[in-house]
């Protein structure tokens, strides 16, 4: 097992990297396992020699122990490192006024029982557990003192809870992390601006560009960017609608330099002539609507020919396009022509 390249170590992980390739001859057949074992033994020996030589051995009780160095191979963490907590309102105030915390003794002298009692926890002198309460001079004699104490305690607890929640919300606002809004994961977007932006992006990421998304409280819905389909209202002025339709047809007409597809007509005519073969079936100069069946054309049994189907669908299309009666007539007149190739 000639090692041409010396192995490298990462003692923090008890790792040995041996960059030498395995001997291809030894890795075949039954010799594989003994060969691998031999290679492993060499590696283990090198690693242990390295450990014994490099690391200082200490004695802890009855075991020989060596301190491991930190690992040199970079490995990812499990979670991001903790962010420092921003100080609470009280902590800020205390810092400004340089108020320091006084460490309180755990035991407090309890006058009533005449002994030392813990300040908190088990065995403390709890006023709520008192069997007797003095009515203070300033208080209403009919007032329930026990109830008053309970109420005050509840208020104190509620106030403390409120302060705690306020601090949390402040922390979140200033530098805390909100749940990730992007599928890409990670990325702390905490400011309200970023949140608004994320909302806008999320809304316009659907087919209707957020038109029908529920409005979030306090959200100002502006102009919807990227609206793809504009639908006019169904009700409204009829003349306006008519005008729009006419405009469409005008544009169509203007675009059509040759209302009759000359080439196509000629080809079809020729086909017809070839198929029929006699003058009786010669097409007269008039171009008929495409619904006309050509004679002599052998179609499939019972069914329409493919070309006939195509023609039918085209005629259906033309029918659809003609919205009003006038449009229809106009279409017909467009398709008609006195002679082939002559424009109307």
């Amino acid at each position: 097992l000639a090692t041409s390249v010396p192995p490298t170590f990462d003692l923090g992980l008890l790792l040995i990297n041996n960059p030498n390739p395995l001997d291809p001859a030894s890795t075949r057949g039954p010799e594989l396992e003994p060969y691998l074992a031999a290679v492993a033994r060499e590696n283990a020996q090198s690693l242990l020699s390295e450990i014994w030589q490099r690391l200082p051995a200490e004695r802890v009780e009855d075991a020989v122990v060596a301190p491991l160095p930190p690992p040199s191979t970079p490995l990812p963490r499990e979670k991001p490192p903790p962010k420092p907590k921003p100080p609470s309102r009280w902590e800020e105030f205390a810092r400004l006024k340089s108020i320091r915390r006084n460490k309180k003794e755990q035991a407090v002298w309890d006058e009533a029982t005449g002994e030392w009692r813990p300040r908190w926890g088990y065995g403390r002198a709890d006023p709520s557990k008192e069997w007797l309460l003095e009515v203070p001079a300033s208080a209403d004699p009919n007032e329930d003192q026990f109830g008053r104490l309970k109420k005050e305690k509840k208020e104190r607890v509620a106030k403390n809870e409120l302060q705690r929640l306020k601090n949390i919300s402040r922390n979140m606002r200033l530098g805390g992390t909100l749940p990730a809004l992007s599928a890409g994961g990670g990325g702390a977007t905490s400011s309200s601006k970023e949140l608004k932006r994320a909302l806008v992006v999320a809304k316009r990421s659907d087919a209707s560009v957020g038109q029908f998304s529920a409005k979030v409280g306090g959200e100002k819905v502006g102009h919807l960017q990227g609206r793809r389909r504009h639908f006019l209202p169904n009700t409204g002025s009829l003349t306006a609608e008519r005008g729009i339709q006419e405009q469409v047809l005008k544009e169509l007409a203007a675009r059509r330099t040759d209302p009759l597809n000359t080439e196509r007509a000629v080809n079809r005519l020729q086909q017809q002539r070839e198929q029929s073969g006699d003058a009786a079936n010669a097409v007269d100069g008039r171009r008929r609507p495409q619904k006309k069946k050509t004679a002599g054309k052998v179609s499939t049994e019972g069914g329409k020919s493919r070309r006939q189907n195509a023609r039918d669908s085209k005629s259906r299309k033309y029918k659809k396009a003609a919205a009003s009666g006038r449009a229809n007539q106009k279409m017909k007149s467009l398709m008609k022509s006195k002679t082939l190739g002559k424009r109307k």
Partner: protein
Amino acid sequence: MASNSVIKPKTQAGKRALARREEKVIENTKSCLLIRGGNTSEAIGSCLKDLYSLKKPHALMLKRRNPILPFEEISFVEKMSRKYDCSLFAFASHSKKRPNNLVLGRLFNYQLLDMIEFGVEGYQPLCTFPVAKVPVGTKPCLSFQGEEFDSDPTLMAIKNLLLDMFQGPRVEKIRLQGIEHLIQFSYCDGQILVRSYRILLKSSGSKIPRVELFEMGPRFGLRLRRHKVATPEQFKQARRQPKVATIKKIKNIVPDDGLGNRLGRVHVGRQELDKLQTRKVKALKRPREDFNAADGKKIKKRRLSDNKKQKNKG
């Protein structure tokens, strides 16, 4: 932090559980979540169980079958990782197209970092090797044989993942006699051969012991199929270490009061001064009048041995 959450834990156990899960400077040992897919063959199911044995106690095996496809929809794994606080996972499945499939992966902040799919070949379970196994929780030695682990980018990623998976607990000190386990990964003909050995340290002529290996299993080869590796930016973010590791505050002790003095408060209970146990000074024991006896002589000192002699006599 538990204090950052709106809901406060109600029990001490709950508080400890939350504290365990929170982000820390020095993290816990990574736990591995082992998941069985919709269909598993006997081999791959057994392989997963062996992996669980290797990774105990930092592993969790899900009992039920989960017909998911990690490479298509990873959300299930992410959800489970968040539930059980595991940042490594192993997913085993078997199908005609991908027989004996093993997906090893890891997560950062409960989101997928990278995962690699292997085909397990030539598997022999732990139980078939008659060698005694290492104790649970032993930190293994890792050995990577082959130049490709340092040159080929995919194999470098695989090596990093395998390191993370098998490194065991992070320790500051290691008992030298406790180095008992070696896992060897060798690259050969497109396969990563995984062999696991028990180390026996025998005395040699020098201070450094001689190593003897006994294969304790499991034994398998991994053939790379698909992979989804983290981008360098994601990896960089995942590796970001905290700048300064906070010094653990020891209660009651001020390490330095500014003048180099280490101060602390010693809590002594209530003392009854006349019943204190001090060092025995015999001169202070007797009352002073003894010295000036009626006859002016010193009172004879009695030794303990005298008492014994008297006892024996009597």
